């Protein structure tokens, strides 16, 4: 059961990462269009507002999944890391839980600022909220994967 939950949590995290990365690129100021479009140009030319609801739902569901997995981590993984004196591994996980908590608190205003029609004087706030959430999701995703595979990664 816990393995199935871990896999579903990972898959949801991938989906969230994709949606939020597209949106984070979409709020970068556009350079003057000239010549053929690059891959990056095409990647960022999405309608960011269309991702907002999906990002909110995926962030919530993925966080709930992580919260459900946490007891197993606390019982099995963390004591092992402490025995191995892997302080940095414990530290990056601590940071992950703090960042997710901050991200959860941002979701209501993030959702409101991405509601259409978009309000012009919220453009900068929308951009930085999106980048902050993207940073949180990237950090959480990488840390989650490293800790999941840590037995194979440590000497």
């Amino acid at each position, binding site marked *: 059961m816990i393995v199935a939950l871990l896999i579903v949590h990972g898959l949801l995290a991938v989906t969230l990462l994709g949606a939020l990365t597209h949106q984070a690129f979409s709020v970068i100021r556009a350079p003057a269009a000239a010549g053929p479009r690059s891959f990056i140009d095409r990647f960022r030319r999405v309608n960011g507002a269309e991702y907002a609801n999906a990002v909110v739902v995926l962030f919530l569901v993925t966080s709930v999944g992580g919260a459900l997995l946490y007891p197993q981590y606390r019982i099995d993984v963390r004591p092992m890391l402490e025995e191995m004196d892997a302080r940095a591994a414990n530290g990056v996980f601590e940071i992950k839980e703090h960042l997710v908590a901050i991200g959860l608190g*941002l979701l209501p205003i993030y959702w409101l600022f991405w509601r259409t029609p978009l309000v012009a004087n919220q453009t900068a*706030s929308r951009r930085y909220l999106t980048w902050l959430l993207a940073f949180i999701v990237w950090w959480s995703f990488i840390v989650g994967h490293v800790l999941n595979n840590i037995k194979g990664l440590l000497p």
Partner: protein
Amino acid sequence: MRASAFKIFAMLSGAAYGLAFYYDLGLFRYYPEVNQFHWTASAESGPVILWYGWLTTAALFSAGVALVVPRRLGERIPPTLVWVVPMLTTLAILVYERRWFV
């Protein structure tokens, strides 16, 4: 009411979480080995998860303040603050958590 309440919640929730974490002000503690919630520390119950309690404290406090602050006051909050405050909170937490890497 909603926009101003959302702004206040966004500004407060991260900072309230940071304080709940720093001063260990979690509303409750969860002991996964015995599958029990406790209001206070329970040394004989095995490893503890504090995160749920910190989150709950921060959410309840921020939601309470967001609902109580008058709408007019909330509307005067510039949109910039809703990302500056959480970003500063994030930075403060990252600086504090350097302790794991020294």
